C-alpha cells in the first residue's frame, strides 16, 4: 500500500480508477470539478482505461450512465448540489432499471441564494429515489467507499444505484494522507461487473417497458426488498474490507464511544469528526457522551438506532439541512424508528452548519450541554427543533 496526500476529489477519482469504472459520463460543477479533471488526467496519463463521455448536463450524465450500465458496463459519475437535483428523475430511473451506477456527490447547498459550501439538502432530497446512500467523513473513507459501494450495488441480490456523499471543501478540497490500495487486491475484492440481464443482440429483451398496475407494485416491492437486504451485505462487505485493509466504517453506522454513553449526538459528514474530538475531551472530564455518525442513510440503520435507544438517555440529532415544514431529515427518521420501539430516549433536533457555516468544538460542547439541560427541564420555549447559533441580526463576528 502507498500513502498519498489526496483531496476528497482526488480520492474519488482514484476510487473510480481502482474500481475500473468502464464508462464515466460527467459534467463539471463546483466543487466537484477536480474529480472530473483528475479522471481526465488519469486517462491521459494512461493510468485509467475508461470511456469518459463529456455530456452537456448532469441529467444526461446520469442517463448515459444508466444506459451504459444496462449495456453491461460498470458506470460511475460524480456531481454536486444543483447537478444532483437535476439528476433526480434519472436517479429514480436508475433504481427502477436496477442499474448499479455509483455516483459521488460533493454535498453543497442549493440556491438561491447562491452558495457553494457544505450542506446536506442535495442528498437528503434524494431520499425516496431508491438509491443507496453512503456518507463519508474523511478522504480515506471516500476512496474505500467507492470500491465497496460498487460491490454492494452490483450484488445480484441488490442491483440498485449508490450515492456516496462527501462534504464540499471540508473534504473535496482538503488534502489528507490516504492509503491507496493495491490494484490486485481491489480486483480480487471487486470482480468485473457481469449483470444477469443486459442489452444483448443475441438475446434481445426490452428494458423498462410499460407494465400494468398489478405488475408495477410487484416491481416496486422487489426494489424495497433489495434495499432491505443491502443492510446485511453492507455489514459483510465492511468486514471483508476490514480484513483486507484494517479499515472498518462500522457497517451500517459509525458508533464512537457509545458503549456506556448517556447522551449522544447523531449526524452526518465532517462535523461528526469534530464532534468525536470533543467527545474525547469531555470523556476526560468524566462526561458520558458519544457520537453516532450516519454511515448509511438508505437503507436506514434501524437496528443501530434502536440498539442505541436501549442504552442511551438522550439523542441529539444534528441536521445540516432542514425538511421545510417539520424537522430535519435525520431527526424525523430517528423519531420514526423509536416510535415502535420499547425504549425511547429523549430526542432533540439541532439544525446546524447549514450552507457551510462552521461547526466548531465549542458548538458541539454546547449541544451536549443543551441536550442534558432540556432532558432535565423540558424543551422550553425553543421547542424540540433548534436552529443552532442563528445570528438574528448579530454580525458573524459577534456570534463567534
Amino acid at each position, binding site marked *: 500500500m502507498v500513502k498519498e496526500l489526496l483531496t476528497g476529489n482526488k480520492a474519488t477519482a482514484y476510487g473510480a480508477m481502482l474500481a475500473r469504472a468502464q464508462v464515466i*459520463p460527467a459534467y463539471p460543477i463546483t466543487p466537484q470539478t477536480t474529480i472530473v479533471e483528475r479522471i481526465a488526467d488519469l486517462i491521459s496519463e494512461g493510468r485509467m482505461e475508461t470511456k469518459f463521455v463529456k455530456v452537456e448536463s448532469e*441529467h444526461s450524465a446520469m442517463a448515459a*450512465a444508466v444506459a451504459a*450500465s444496462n449495456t453491461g458496463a460498470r458506470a460511475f459519475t460524480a456531481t454536486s448540489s444543483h447537478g444532483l437535483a437535476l439528476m433526480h428523475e434519472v436517479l429514480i*430511473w436508475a433504481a427502477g432499471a436496477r442499474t448499479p451506477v455509483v455516483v459521488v456527490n460533493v454535498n453543497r447547498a442549493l440556491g438561491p441564494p447562491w452558495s457553494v459550501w457544505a450542506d446536506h439538502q442535495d442528498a437528503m432530497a434524494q431520499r425516496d429515489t431508491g438509491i443507496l446512500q453512503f456518507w463519508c467523513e474523511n478522504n480515506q473513507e471516500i476512496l474505500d467507499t467507492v470500491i465497496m459501494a460498487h460491490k454492494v450495488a452490483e450484488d445480484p441480490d441488490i442491483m440498485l444505484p449508490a450515492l456516496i456523499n462527501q462534504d464540499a471543501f471540508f473534504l473535496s478540497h482538503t488534502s489528507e494522507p490516504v492509503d491507496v490500495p493495491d490494484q490486485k487486491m481491489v480486483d480480487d475484492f471487486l470482480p468485473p461487473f457481469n449483470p444477469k440481464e443486459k442489452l444483448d443482440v443475441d438475446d434481445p*429483451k426490452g*428494458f*423498462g*417497458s410499460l407494465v400494468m398496475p398489478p405488475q408495477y407494485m410487484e416491481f416496486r416491492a422487489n426494489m424495497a426488498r433489495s434495499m432491505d437486504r443491502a443492510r446485511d451485505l453492507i455489514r459483510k462487505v465492511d468486514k471483508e474490507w476490514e480484513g483486507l485493509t484494517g479499515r472498518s466504517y462500522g457497517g451500517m453506522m459509525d458508533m464512537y464511544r457509545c458503549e456506556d454513553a448517556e447522551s449522544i449526538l447523531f449526524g452526518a459528514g465532517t462535523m461528526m469528526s469534530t464532534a468525536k474530538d470533543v467527545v474525547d475531551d469531555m470523556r476526560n472530564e468524566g462526561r458520558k457522551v458519544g457520537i453516532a455518525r450516519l454511515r448509511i442513510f438508505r437503507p436506514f440503520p434501524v437496528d443501530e438506532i434502536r440498539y442505541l435507544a436501549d442504552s442511551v438517555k438522550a439523542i441529539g440529532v444534528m441536521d445540516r439541512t432542514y425538511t421545510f415544514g417539520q424537522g430535519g431529515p435525520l431527526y424525523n427518521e430517528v423519531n420514526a424508528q423509536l416510535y415502535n420501539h420499547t425504549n425511547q430516549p429523549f430526542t432533540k433536533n439541532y439544525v446546524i452548519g447549514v450552507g457551510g457555516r462552521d461547526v466548531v468544538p465549542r458548538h458541539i460542547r454546547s449541544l451536549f450541554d443543551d441536550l442534558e439541560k432540556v432532558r432535565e427541564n423540558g424543551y422550553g420555549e425553543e421547542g424540540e427543533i433548534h436552529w443552532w447559533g442563528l445570528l438574528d441580526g448579530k454580525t458573524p463576528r459577534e456570534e463567534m
Partner: protein
Amino acid sequence: MMAKLTIPEEELMSPGHMGCLGCGATQAMRYVLKAAGRRTILSIPACCWAVMPGVWPNTCLQVPELYTPFETTGASISGIRAALDALGQEDINVIGFAGDGGTADIGIQALSGTADRQDNVLYIMYDNEAYMNTGIQRSGSTPIGTWTTTTPVGSTQEWEKSPKKNMTAIMAAHGIPYIATATTGYPEDIIKKVTKALSIKGTKFMQIFSPCPTGWKMDPALTVSITKEALSSRAFNLFEIENGAYKVTMKPKKTPLKGYLMKQGRFRHMPDDLIAEVEADLDSAYENLLHLEECTRKKA
C-alpha cells in the same frame, strides 16, 4: 419483367403492435429495423413507441430495446455506445428512435450533446408533427395553422402560429457527417438512407415524416398516399446532407397545398389567405433547398 426487391425480407417487428390504424410510426420502425438488422440496440424515450411494442412481458420488437426518460434519447445512445466500445462490441448499431416532441423540444439538449461529441450513433426522429401519445398537443414540429388540443380552433382562432422547427438545419449546424429526411410512403428510400447512415461513423440524424391518422383527423386509408401529396405540395421535402453537401432526393411535380391540407381535419379550418401565405413559405423553403443543393455540390 420482375422488379428487384430491395427491401430485406427479414421482419424484426412482429405483428401485434398497439399502434392505431394507419400508424406511420409503425411503418417507420419496421423499415428502419429491416435496414439495420439484428445486430442493433434501440433506445426509445417516452413516445408512441414506448407503448406500441406491447405491455410487459410482451414486445413486438426483436432487437434489444432500452426505454429511457423523455429527454434522454441522445444521452442514452451515447451511453450505450460508450459501453459497447468499452466491452469491445463496436460493430453493433445503436439507434435512438424518438418522436418529434422528444427530439425538437424536450430532447434537443441531449441530442445536441451527442452530435457535438460526434458519438457513433443513428438518431431517428419519427415526425408526426405533434405530441400524439399524450393526445395531440402541439410540438415544435407542428406546422403553422394546425389544430391540436393545445392549439384549438374556437372563435379566437388559436391554431398553431409558429412554423415547423427546422431540425435538419439545426443538426446540420452541428457539422455531423450525415443527415437525411424520409417518409413512410417510400420504404425503399428509408432503407437506402438508413443503410447509408449506418455505414458512416459519427452521429447521423434522420427525420422520418410519419402520418398519424388519429392526430391528423384523417382517413387511415390515406396514410401512404398522403405522404406523396406532402412531398408534392412541399409540406415536407426529401433530401440528404452528407458532409455538408445537400442532395434533394426527390423532386416531385408541384401540386396545390390546399389538396394536401383539406384531406386532414387538423387543417380544414385554415382560411384561404393563410393557406396562400403558408404555401408561399413552403415553396420558398423548397427553392432554398435546391439552391443549397446547387451551391454545396462541389463539396460532395
